[in-house]
């Protein structure tokens, strides 16, 4: 799941300052799950903006709020067609993908990000999320006992642990588990410690040629579609 956190109120107020009518748009998928931009957060942000405005006294915005099922597929945005005509800007509480899809779907209206999209991760417990995947495009989890050293090791090294591992913790942050210590323990538990003794050649650390695209449909020769 994509994890994000809401931008500070001050920053959001700065973003919307020059627009009068603003649609606060939530997203019903990842942003709901990570508590950054679901229906509840949309209404809380709406309340906060209203009070801030009332106290400031020199701005007058009006707000609409709506939460779609998923902002990153433009079909879900079709319901907004009418209400969007009435607003000057959309404050999207979707992740970066959502903000861009909204921008593409409504090209004439500014689409502003209300959250900082931060990482892909999982809930550790209620209200706590941890990063788990860096989307490197070259997954090695089979060799590292299902624990990703790229994401969870501060250095992202493939042949760990380094000398900074102490009592299973990382030298960069004493509260953080050393990913390689975790990998060792889990390999031991799986009876696969020999994977520790192997040398892993460096990955392709070249800059990933962005943006990446994945196509799952087969390419069909022209004319083939008609049977």
């Amino acid at each position: 799941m994509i994890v994000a956190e809401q931008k500070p109120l001050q920053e959001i107020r700065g973003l919307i300052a020059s627009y009068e009518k603003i649609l606060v748009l939530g997203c019903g998928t990842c942003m709901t799950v990570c508590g950054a931009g679901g229906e509840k957060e949309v209404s809380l942000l709406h309340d906060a903006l209203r009070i801030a405005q009332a106290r400031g006294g020199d701005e007058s915005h009006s707000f609409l709020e709506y939460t779609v099922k998923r902002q990153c597929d433009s079909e879900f945005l079709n319901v907004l067609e009418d209400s969007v005509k009435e607003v000057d800007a959309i404050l999207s509480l979707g992740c970066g993908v959502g903000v861009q899809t909204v921008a593409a779907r409504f090209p004439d209206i500014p689409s502003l990000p209300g959250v900082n999209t931060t990482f892909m991760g999982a809930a550790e417990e209620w209200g706590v999320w941890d990063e788990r995947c860096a989307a490197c495009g070259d997954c090695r989890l089979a060799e590292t006992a299902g624990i990703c050293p790229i994401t969870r090791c501060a250095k992202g090294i493939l042949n760990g642990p380094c000398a900074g591992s102490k009592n299973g913790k990382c030298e960069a942050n004493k509260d953080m588990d050393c990913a390689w210590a975790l990998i060792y323990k889990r390999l031991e538990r799986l009876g696969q410690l020999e994977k520790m003794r192997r040398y892993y050649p460096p990955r392709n650390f070249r800059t990933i040629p962005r943006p990446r695209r994945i196509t799952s449909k087969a390419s069909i020769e022209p004319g083939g579609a008609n049977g």
Partner: protein
Amino acid sequence: MDSVRLDAYKSYNSNAAKRPSFDHTFVPPCQAACPLHMEIREYVDLIAQGRVMEALQVIREDNPFPSICAYICNHPCEDACRRGQIDKPIAIRALKRFAVEFGGDRVIQPEAETTHEERIAIVGSGSAGLSAAYYLRKLGYPVTVFEACSELGGMLRAGIPKYRLPREVLDTEVQRLIQMGVEIRTNTRVVSLDLLFDMDYKAVFITVGAAQSRRLGIEGEDKPGVVDAITFLREVNLGLRPSIGESVVVVGGGNVAVDAARTALRLDAKKVDLVCLESRQEMPAFESDIQAAASEGIVINCSWGPRSIVADDKVTGIEFIRCTSVFDGGGRFDPSFDESVKTSLTADTLIIAIGQVPQIPEDFRVRIGRGSTIRVDPVTLTTNREGVFAGGDAVTGPATVVQALATGRQAAFRIDDYLQHRYPLVGKEEKESLLGDLLPKTIEMIRKLNRFEPPVLSPQARAKEFEPVELVYDWKSAVNEARRCLRCGMGAEILFRDKCAACLTCLRVCPYHVPYLDDSGTVQIPADQCQACGICVGECPARAIVLRKPQDRRHIDEELDHALKTAAQSKSRPLIIGFCCQYGLYGTGALARLWRQAKAGIWIVPVLCVAKIEAEHILRAFEMGAEGVFIAGCGQEQCAREDTAFWALQRIGKARKVLAQIGLEPKRLQAFNLCPTEGDPAKALDEFTERIGELHLASAIEQEVKT
């Protein structure tokens, strides 16, 4: 007329009129078990909030004679109460008694408007007859109650001893009926129904009860000193003081036997023995009454069958043989005895209480079924004769008061249908009852809370008196007892399935581990396990979860609106909004006193548990001009819920974060009294008010400087 009928129907068909379709609550087990289908969960909840008068209103809606039930109901609701699976059931009857005594039950029934011409005769003035009279009169019919005795009440007056039901209580209820315009004919034994029809009655309801005692069928039963229990109780209850000697033996194991034994003890008897066929566990009398009898000194002799009465010209004793079993394999009454094991007791008086049967005059010409009871259609209560209805003990055999009240109500509506030529509007239960026990893992998480028993008169004090044995709760115990209620069937539900992102927040925040993921990956909140604390409702990021009861959903919003509106009209400044738990004594008592004394304009938003307050509520108060907001819990250990303080503090934290970003001092928002260990809430509130006062002053000066 329509409104009257609607009102009456509301209370009877307690579904259609009262419950809009978006009410998703379930009928709790207590209500399902009550023959009158009283809204027990609602009135217990009101008592828990200290709103006793409103509780009594709810009670009155479904019960024609609440004060009678408050004393003598056998409370099937308590047997069904799911608190019993955790510790002990809620003391529902005792709470009703409290509501009746403290809720100002001085209602004077206005005379009901007569909107129908058809006169209705009620034969017999027991519980069923009085209840039918009450409802028929409310429906606007001229009603006449015929009673063979000199006073109304049937078994309520002649059978039930005064120490269980004080006569003033009965008299008050009877007086209300008279005020409603029910015509009373006492000392009038109806011997023929034809005569009633000749007198232009269009419908007759027979509720003559079951007052004929069964006979033992052994020799000596007609000797002086042998008396049947019904006659004995009637004599005592109607003010006679029969001479019974010093030793009394009561034969029988039912409620009448126990009543007779306890009554005898309150007369001259020095030694009272109760002898019954059944073993101690099989005795049909209510367990609490048996225990009370034993504590008063009555000797309970179980598993003995009377064999012969020893008498010369007067009874002197009775011989028993061992009863080895009372019922046959099929559960039918078929006692077997062991002749070789014998015992005997001396007795000055022998009271026979082995059951009663109805005695229906032959001239009634109604069909009689098993056990001399009248045969009726169970739905319409019609007999074989047109326009003649029957109910109560005369139909069922000896039963409970609350059953009789329910039958009376049923009869009233069926008679109405008959007279208005309508197909019977039989109350269909539209709402589902809550089935299913609590799961062990839920039970484990629910706080165990002791049941508060109402005080009773000491056994020494009661043995020679006819004073009521059970006393009434004091305010504190009643409120605390009511707070134990689990509010079955009114918990949370995922109303908007399409919104649910399956984020599992509800699973993670529920203190009782109620929500679960089913095999298809959908989150379920089983209604029979949910404890209605509302925490998941406040935390659901998709706002997919709501409380099942519509009033609960908007309760805080509405109360807040109300408080803000009232506050807007007031001049007192600074404006402080306090969200206060209404459960327990704090919200209604201690706190109310505090804020009345405070100098600032403090406005209270009553909440039903602080865990239901959301950050939005707090922010709205500030938006509408509040300069300070405080949240006060009930601060009592008697809270039936878990983790409420933790979640209240979470939401306060969230609101403070927003306040800080807006530039409002987070200290304008304060919580206190969330748990019993905290300091004095009065002091905390004073300090808070003072602080807000200072902030108010500072901002006022700032404003002044600016201008």
